[in-house]
């Protein structure tokens, strides 16, 4: 081990240059470049006179044992682009006359304890990495860096100094043996991804002391605690814009979430494992009741338990959360029930009335937009919660022609606009995606606008009354054990309707949409009744490619009406009571070996069209009523130059005006294509005549005579 002193001011610290290294303070240059076992000193004699100087690190990471910058009488800048500094001993920066601008990692790789890191308020330009098996580092001053990454060894904030750490991220996401001693320090972490990163926490010891870990980002911070015990952990942004997450089954003394006071709307914290809070779980109030937080399981319909000794909750919506422990049942101020909760006492469902006189937001500051009585005073406490009913009075509130904007992804109970008839209103959602837990009732004077998805997730019986008003928003039904029942025809714009969980009950009505998507493995039912799903889009407009958990009931119709090509992706499902209808000029392609109650072609009254099957599939029908008409033949074929199979178990297919190719008709029924159909070749089982007169006709009767 040797000592190396920097001399002669500005110079380059690389792997070969000896110009600026001396064996003594202020001595002659020319000493060897310091190795990992050498101590380096930057002191009063490192510069020329009292001039400022820059030490630019280059080549591979510069190494030393102890790094000491002390006694400088001119400003020293430790520079280097994407070059790091590896310190095998301790590090001391000088509080004044010293700046670190290098952008690489500062790595501490000692393998013995007793090392110190004393930055004296000088920030690292890059990350601080602690990586030495058996090493131990104690802060001698607050540490400010990019990522603080503990890979091996013991990181200690000092039991006497309780120094703060300010970093983008505290990471120790590995299985190495390491210890984190946080003492009574405050750790401020600003990362927008994972400010605390210990998802892999094997062989880690966290001694939280009475520390406080603050996750400060407004944009989706993740506290990946790794199932360890912490003291105070706080999400401190007052304007959370995207969901934060707590992962790992952690234990906290206190867990707190700051309410929103900017970025109007609702901030969300997702919980991905059960948590224990031995002190107080706090969600503090925001600026107004419309500034809300939502605590949810990270997995829809999967409960997470928060075992709390005490709670302090204001303007919080809960979804799939159980609160257990001494605080259960938990209560608070304006708690919204987004279903799947237990151990929480929610306020009784109330009915509130819109009270703004002109165009305004659903969630407003100050006195808000709602009143406890129709035409009553604005009341900031009457913001409608997920269990409430929000009514728009017949007139004045708002004035005819006004727009009410759902200005955030709020959790909303019932929206009742049925009184809006001659006094019109627009309910706009812009790009927001609210979730609806009650009924949606349009009035005949309602106009809807917006592009964010309307999700129906009430997990009970919900109804949609459209009143002939087109929903411009995509509609998603995700209501485990619940149902959404149409009260009249529902028409969307050129958007997708998605059934994720629960029952979509058409009763006898027509659902018209651009695309219908129902491909997942959740329990869900399309209850057609005698209703119809009419799909106007092109491309793959029906998707049940994954139909695990899907039930289809009723005797309704799926009609694909586009004038352009469209595909029905059944996924090999039994639509046994359902009629599939070709309702447009565009060729209808059916993929998968599906079963249908019937197949029809209502477009024959207008023009010729096609129904194409995927080669190699077998489509089974109870009835076949797809025909063309004179000069408007219906083409039956395969998508590719190979055959498909059509199967009907019994009876007679009596079609006509078909142009058939690549088609094998089988199953036991008589497949009569009709006298006016054409055989395009490569067919089997089709009989290109009209069916014989049914037995029991007059001729047979005469024979018996």
């Amino acid at each position, binding site marked *: 081990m040797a000592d190396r002193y920097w001399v002669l001011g500005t110079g380059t610290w690389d792997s070969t240059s000896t110009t600026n290294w001396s064996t003594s303070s202020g001595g002659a240059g020319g000493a060897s470049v310091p190795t990992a076992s050498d101590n380096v000193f930057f002191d009063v004699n490192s510069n020329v006179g009292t001039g400022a100087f820059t030490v630019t690190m280059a080549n591979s990471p510069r190494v030393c044992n102890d790094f000491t910058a002390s006694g400088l009488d001119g400003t020293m800048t430790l520079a280097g682009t994407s070059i790091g500094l590896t310190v095998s001993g301790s590090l001391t920066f000088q509080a004044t006359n010293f700046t670190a601008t290098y952008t690489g990692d500062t790595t501490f790789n000692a393998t013995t304890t007793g090392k110190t890191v004393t930055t004296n308020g000088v920030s690292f330009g890059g990350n601080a990495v602690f990586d030495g098996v058996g090493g131990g580092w104690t802060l001698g001053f607050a540490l400010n860096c990019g990522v603080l990454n503990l890979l091996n060894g013991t990181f200690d904030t000092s039991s006497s100094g309780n120094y703060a750490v300010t970093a983008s991220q505290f990471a120790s996401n590995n299985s190495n043996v390491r210890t984190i001693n946080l003492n009574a320090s405050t750790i401020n972490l600003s990362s927008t991804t994972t400010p605390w990163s210990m998802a892999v926490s094997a062989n880690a010891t966290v001694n939280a002391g009475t520390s406080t870990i603050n996750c400060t980002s407004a944009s989706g911070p993740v506290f990946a605690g790794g199932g360890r015990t912490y003291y105070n952990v706080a999400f401190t942004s007052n304007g959370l814009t995207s969901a934060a997450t707590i992962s790992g089954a952690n234990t906290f003394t206190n867990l707190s979430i700051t309410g929103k006071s900017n970025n109007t709307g609702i901030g969300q914290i997702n919980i991905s494992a059960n948590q224990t809070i031995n002190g107080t779980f706090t969600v503090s109030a925001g600026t107004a009741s419309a500034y809300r937080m939502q605590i949810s399981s990270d997995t829809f319909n999967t409960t997470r338990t928060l075992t709390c000794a005490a709670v302090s909750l204001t303007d919080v919506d809960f979804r799939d959360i159980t609160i257990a422990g001494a605080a259960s049942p938990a209560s608070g101020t304006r708690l919204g029930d987004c279903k799947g909760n237990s151990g929480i006492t929610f306020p009784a469902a109330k009915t509130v009335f819109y009270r703004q006189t002109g165009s305004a937001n659903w969630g407003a500051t100050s006195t808000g937009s709602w009143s406890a009585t129709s035409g009553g005073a604005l009341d900031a406490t009457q913001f409608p919660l997920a269990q409430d009913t929000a009514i728009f009075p017949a007139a004045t509130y708002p004035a005819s022609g006004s727009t009410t904007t759902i200005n955030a992804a709020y959790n909303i109970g019932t929206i009742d606009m*049925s009184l809006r008839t001659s006094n019109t209103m627009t309910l706009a959602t812009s790009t927001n995606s609210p979730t609806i837990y009650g009924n949606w009732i349009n009035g005949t004077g309602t106009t809807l606008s917006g592009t964010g998805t309307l999700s129906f997730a009430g997990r009970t019986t919900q109804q949609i*009354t459209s*009143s*002939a008003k*087109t929903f411009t928003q*995509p509609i*998603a039904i995700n209501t485990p054990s619940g149902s959404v029942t149409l*009260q*009249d*025809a529902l*028409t969307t*714009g*050129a*958007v*997708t309707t*998605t059934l*994720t969980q629960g029952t979509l009950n058409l009763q*006898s*009505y*027509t659902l*018209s949409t*651009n*695309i219908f*998507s129902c*491909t*997942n493995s*959740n329990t869900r039912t399309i209850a057609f009744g*005698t*209703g*119809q799903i*009419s799909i*106007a*889009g*092109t*491309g*793959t*407009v029906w*998707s049940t490619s994954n139909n695990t958990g899907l039930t289809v009931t009723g005797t309704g*119709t799926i*009609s694909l*009406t*586009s*004038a*352009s090509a469209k595909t029905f992706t059944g996924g090999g499902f039994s639509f046994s009571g359902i009629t599939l*209808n070709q*309702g*447009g000029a*565009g060729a209808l392609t059916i993929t998968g070996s599906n079963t249908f109650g019937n197949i029809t072609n*209502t*477009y024959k*009254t*207008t023009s010729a069209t096609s129904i194409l099957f995927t080669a190699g599939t077998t489509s089974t029908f109870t009835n076949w009523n797809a025909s063309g008409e004179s000069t408007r033949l219906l083409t039956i074929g395969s998508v590719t130059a190979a055959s498909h199979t059509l199967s009907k178990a019994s009876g007679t297919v009596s079609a006509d005006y078909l142009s058939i190719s690549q088609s094998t008709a089988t199953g036991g029924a008589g497949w009569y294509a009709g006298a006016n159909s054409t055989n395009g070749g490569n067919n089997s089982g089709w009989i290109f005549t009209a069916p014989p007169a049914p037995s029991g006709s007059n001729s047979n009767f005469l024979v018996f005579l």
Partner: protein
Amino acid sequence: MKIDFSFSSQYGTFSDALHLPDDHGLSDEQIEAMKQQRFDNWIAVITAPPVEETPTEEV
């Protein structure tokens, strides 16, 4: 009161309902006109120029 009604067309069947106050005071002709208007509006929506859209895949 709710009045269910249906229209058949080349695009399939359109089934809808009118939700009216019990004392709506509308004549039969007015009600029939309302039904026809809803059907006409439906035809207009489903025959609007096609829009390409990728189906949403749920988790």
